[in-house]
């Protein structure tokens, strides 16, 4: 049978006798990174479809969108932008710590990131609740009585920030999973690709918000 040991990669030789390494499909750092980048690409297209819908209706109802946007609380939105920005810093630092072998520091920074994400969701919750208390939520009588552009703006607002919120929740779950993997020595200073990929995911989630914030909050500034 096959003489496969973990002593090193399989090496084969061409006709001229030059050695070539065979990629081990069970342990392929580059493959794992490449696959995750493709996944991020699909996420980008998922949000891209939403941004396309947003731009289409923004183009059709610019006045309504600006008017509706001016009713949002830009301070809370700005705070959330800041919170996410800081959280990506801690996420990145935890990866650097892990690569340097400082496992407890890395773990602490992941926990800080989780707490910041929970803070983000809390602020988001109060924002949504404020709208809902004013009777503004999809298909409410108050909202349906307003102009088309305003209905669509809030429809998109709840959909897009909601979808983004779902991604934050998935991110929290992934970070908890990483903490478990680190305790079980599955993620280590030499085998960190899972943390690296989650950090990439977190950057995407943060970047999406960086575009959501101006589109929903800043367009109504000064109105």
């Amino acid at each position: 049978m096959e003489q496969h040991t973990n002593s090193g990669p399989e090496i084969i030789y061409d006709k001229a006798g030059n050695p070539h390494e065979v990629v081990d499909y069970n342990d392929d750092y580059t493959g794992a990174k490449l696959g995750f980048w493709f996944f991020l690409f699909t996420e980008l297209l998922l949000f891209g479809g939403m941004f396309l819908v947003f731009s289409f209706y923004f183009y059709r109802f610019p006045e309504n969108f600006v008017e509706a946007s001016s009713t949002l609380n830009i301070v809370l939105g700005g705070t959330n932008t800041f919170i996410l920005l800081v959280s990506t810093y801690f996420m990145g630092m935890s990866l650097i710590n892990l690569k340097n072998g400082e496992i407890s520091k890395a773990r602490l920074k992941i926990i800080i990131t989780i707490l910041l994400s929970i803070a983000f969701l809390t602020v988001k919750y109060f924002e949504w609740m404020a709208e809902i208390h004013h009777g503004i939520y999809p298909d409410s009588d108050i909202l349906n009585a307003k102009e088309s552009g305003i209905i669509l703006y809030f429809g998109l607002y709840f959909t897009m920030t909601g979808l983004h919120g779902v991604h934050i929740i998935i991110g929290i779950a992934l970070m908890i999973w990483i903490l478990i993997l680190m305790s079980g020595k599955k993620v280590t200073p030499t085998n960190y690709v899972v943390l690296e990929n989650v950090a990439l995911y977190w950057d995407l989630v943060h970047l999406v918000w960086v575009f959501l914030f101006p589109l929903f909050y800043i367009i109504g500034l000064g109105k």
Partner: protein
Amino acid sequence: MTRKTFYDETHTVFGHHENKLFQWIFSIDHKRIAFLYMIVMFAFFVVALGVALSMRLELFFPGEQLLTPDQFNQAFTLHGVIMVFLFIIPGIPAIFGNFLLPLLIGAKDVSFPRLNLFSWWLFLAGAIIAIVSLFVGDGFADTGWTFYAPYSVNTNTNVLMALTAAYILGMASILTGLNFVVTIHRLRAPGMDFFKMPLFVWGLYSTAWIQVLATPVVGITLILVIIEKTIGIGIFDPSKGGDPILYEHLFWIYSHPAVYLMILPAFGVVSEIVPTFCRRTIFGYRAIAISSAMISIIGYLVWGHHLFSSGMSEWAKVVFSFLTFFVSIPTGIKFFDWIATMYKGSIVMATPMLWVVGTIVTFAIGGLTGVVLATLGITIHLHDTYYVVAHFHYAMLGGVIFMMFAAMHYWFPKFFGKMYNETKAKFAFWTIFIGFNLLWFPMFIAGALGMPRRYFDYLPEFTIYHQISGVGAFVIIFGMLYMGYNLYKAISNGEPCGRNPWNATTLEWQIDSPPLLENFVNTPYIDFEPYDYKDGKPVHDLYDEIHKGR
């Protein structure tokens, strides 16, 4: 020494299982996963055939026979959803791609074996949701497989479950595509550069890119309909300022590339079979490889031709019409290359080759009628008629599914190490081929005369076309059952045929049939092109090198 194949031993995701069933449904071996897909998909294929036959029976005479008008709407939706989302889109990549991709490039498995199994489980979950929605509430969706808003938002049938099912199936498709792209980039045997890959791999590569790039768009579109239906955000609802045409655009941005996603792996299958049975290298290897990529790129930019009669500016129509014509050029290149390969070759008319030659005829009809439909003036007359139905069945059934049948006959000996009965297989081909043309060709005429699609009733003057079609439907279904029976019998009773019964050149035939668990004992070094023949024999045989030291 007895040889242990992948049937005898496997890797599973949760360690070792005593139970044989668990050893299959938790297996992360790409060959077993291919079989898992095959079983589920063919079960659904039979269901969808039954639904189609019931529609043909309903239409055998004018007036109401078998199905009520509402049931008829549900029947064509069910037929479309199963055939598109559960059979043709995953079809060749999930079965033949999974089984053969690692074998063709000299790899031991795909890049992410666990993700591969997870994709199958997602696929199964989506399939189960689709089936459950048949039996609860008001029954299966009656919107057509395209789920056009605003009707899909307003109808009371189970659109939500159908959408959820389609979304989950889309995720499975994305993950498979992602897996294949990474596998092709990372796991090719040393020395095999992109232009030494077999052409089926090129087809899978282009397909996988479409899966990764286009499916998320339909994913978000389906989610938007789900949100619209549950909480009423208004984006597809004209009474709130929304625009139903926007749905059509978003839907077809994915679903037109999906058409090429169906056909490209099928073209790849043809490019494997033609050189093997002509005993010579393929004509224009690079042209075929690059035309696959061209089709997938241009295929992105033609979605608007589904909306010619929905309301669109004249300029946009001209551009979409031009691009649609243009996509037939890389397709034509492939056809000429295959025919040039056959020209003056010593063709062996074995069953797979017979299927390919038959498909070249039927797909040419399907493709060229597509060019007719892309013409701006004519399309207004033919839109939503039986002409369109006949066109896409010639392309999908007469193209993709026929080539899938070709692949089944070509790689059957690889799967099982046995050979089916050749005479019976040829008889099945002729039955299906004749039944197929009897079934669909009259629809071109009926459509041109004005028979609209998706109607459960028709004017008496169309009776003759429907009756010819009805007879054809029985012939083709008999043929398919006979073909299935012939192949099924061969699994247990077929003659053992050795590892390379076709004298093929590609890597999968240079290892044992059926393959070992990790395919290659030693990874070969590939410094030659995939279809090298000399005097009708393959030039390279690496069997001894691959199995050295076993």
